[in-house]
């Protein structure tokens, strides 16, 4: 089965993903339609060429409530200057999928554009594009609206349903043990961990409680990545050592804005290859 993302990794497995020269254990983020639809396609190609394991494609929104200045500005540019809407984004995602049928892709969007488009319709479109994971930062993953994207796992059904669309819970270090168990029992198997309490693009630090959370997730066979504030290959390596996957957004947007994305990606790629 292609593009069914987690391929659960334990901490012990983590170094393995450093080995293949073509693959960097990175989830690379971009804003669709920034600075233009064509340019964001080029950025996606650059990420894929650099061996990025997972592509995270964000649908731009006028008011991104959890993002820092770079992503906020990118969203605003895409929405206000380019008039990019969800339909245009899905067309672009379809093109990326057509070119790269094997690439792991997750979609990211704030709730309102999906709500207005229709949550059931969103799930249908994404599954048709062989995309199985979705990040919606302002949608608690077990809320009634979330259920419209796909049913949660029934506690009575031991067989995990891999056919539906799954939300990626975005967790901070303040998640309670009880809540974490509830999410695992509901079938969530890919988690986005905030490095610390911050917005995207802030300075990097790793909250001391993350290790315990990661151990629990890995023990349950779930996959996770760390994001928020990763801006150097060294920081990415810390995240990969901790959980197997680093999530990078603002740093690459900044590099693109400064016309040094290719150079930047080579440096990151080299850092992982040399280290292995």
């Amino acid at each position, binding site marked *: 089965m292609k593009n069914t993302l987690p391929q659960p990794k334990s901490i012990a497995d983590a170094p393995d993903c450093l080995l293949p020269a073509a693959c960097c254990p990175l989830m690379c983020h971009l804003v669709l339609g920034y600075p233009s639809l064509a340019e964001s396609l080029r950025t996606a190609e650059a990420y894929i060429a650099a061996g990025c394991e997972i592509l995270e494609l964000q649908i731009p*929104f*006028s*008011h991104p*409530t*959890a993002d820092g*200045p770079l992503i*906020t500005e990118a969203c*605003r540019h895409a*929405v206000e200057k380019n*008039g990019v*809407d*969800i*339909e245009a984004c899905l067309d672009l995602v379809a093109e990326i999928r057509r070119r790269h049928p094997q690439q792991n892709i997750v979609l990211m969007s704030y*709730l*309102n*554009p*999906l*709500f*207005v*488009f229709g949550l059931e319709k969103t799930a249908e479109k994404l599954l048709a594009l062989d995309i199985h994971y979705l990040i919606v*930062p*302002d*949608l*608690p*993953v077990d*809320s*009634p*609206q979330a259920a419209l994207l796909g049913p949660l796992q029934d506690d009575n059904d031991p067989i995990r349903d891999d056919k539906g669309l799954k939300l990626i*819970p*975005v*967790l*901070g270090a*303040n*998640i*309670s043990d009880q*809540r974490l168990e509830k999410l695992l029992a509901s079938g969530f198997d890919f988690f986005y961990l*905030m490095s610390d*309490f*911050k*917005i995207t693009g*802030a300075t990097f630090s790793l909250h001391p409680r993350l290790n315990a959370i990661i151990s629990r997730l890995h023990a349950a066979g779930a996959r996770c990545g760390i994001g928020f504030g990763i801006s150097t290959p060294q920081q990415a390596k810390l995240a990969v050592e901790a959980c197997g996957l680093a999530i990078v957004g603002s740093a690459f947007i900044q590099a693109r804005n400064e016309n040094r994305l290719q150079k930047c990606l080579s440096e990151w790629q080299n850092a992982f290859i040399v280290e292995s």
Partner: protein
Amino acid sequence: MQPTSYRHTILQSSGYFGPYGGTYVPEVLLPALENIAKGFDEARQDPAFLAELDHELRHFNGRETPLTPLPRLTTQLGGAQIALKNEGLNHTGAHKINHCIGQALLARRLGKKRIIAETGAGQHGYATAAVCARYGLDCTVYMGRKDYERQRPNVYWMELLGATVVPVEDGAQTLNDAVIAAFKDWVTHPEETYYLLGSAVGPHPYPQMNTFFQKIVGEEIRRQSLDQYGKLPHTMLACVGGGSNAMGMFFDLLDEPNVQLIGVEAGGKGAKPGEHASKLLGGKAGIFEGYHSYFLQENGGNIAATHSVSAGLDYCGVSPILAWLADEKRIQFAAATDAEALAAVQTLARTEGIIPALESAHAFAHAFKLAPNLSPDQLIVVNASGRGEKDLFITMRHFQEESLTAYAKHLLSGQQAAGSGQRSQQSAVDSRQSAVVYGH
């Protein structure tokens, strides 16, 4: 048929009002919101908490506020009797302090030391700064840069009270951007910070909690109306930005089917997108800033620009409780334009000696249209949710321009004014005349 009781449904809700409301926030904020919801549920059943709240509302805030008859206005409009609920006489000048006292006491009860808040007109920020000073809490207020400039007096008062006021340079630099900045602050300090949200909007429990702390306004109106008029009002009007003063005024009378309730939104410069802030008249269902309600939107779920001469109404969303009550047809909605609100400020000032906030003036503008069509045995109560001193730099500019225009006309007509004293007297008369024109 109305359900068993609107009041019961709202106060017992776990966060949903019909389809609206909910808790749509990042996972990282869920523990803080659950903590507040649980703390609020316990506090409102705790006689000691309620006694302290009552003490503070009386002796710090100065409640109750009067229900003031408006006899000259009643005579001029020729129709229903008009009275106003003078929430402008609250300490710090608006109804906002009712929920600020309640929430600050709750924050202290929950052991929080740091308060953050957003503000539009500055009234909520000013009230938050005052209660934080009184209860010894650290206070940071986010305010859009545009509002920071146009409501400068309140910025000064907040700073004098020891608060840090942060101008938000993002987006349209108004209330919406201040809310987002406050949420971003909270995401980065979820454990030690209490977000003292300033309207009946946002994720659960804020809509319900602020309604609970504001409902004293309607309770007093019920009592005062029976005492002073021997009956309940025929119609009550409140301006609607997020909806805190409207919920405060309307809540206690929701289950009185003969009391007509009207929310008046900001009609701005006109009905074109981006030129007003009328959510219930011009918005559609959406989920944003933590709650499901009506929002002004464009282009596939993006949040649209808003405009109002009053910073406190210049906001894209509205209380999920009001959205539900609008669907239920329990509350009607209307809009008043910038010009109508400005004219209403002047009319009320000159006929009754009360200067209302520009926000509240929207409700008066609609009441002026309504009153002539009702009979003298019917009572209209308008919520003067705030007083107008804070609008100094907006109203002064407007009314002065107005008088300058009138003076220019006066010069062109060949009747040259003799001296400065006479000139200013003449301008005042002309400006009164032009205010009448505006009212139409």
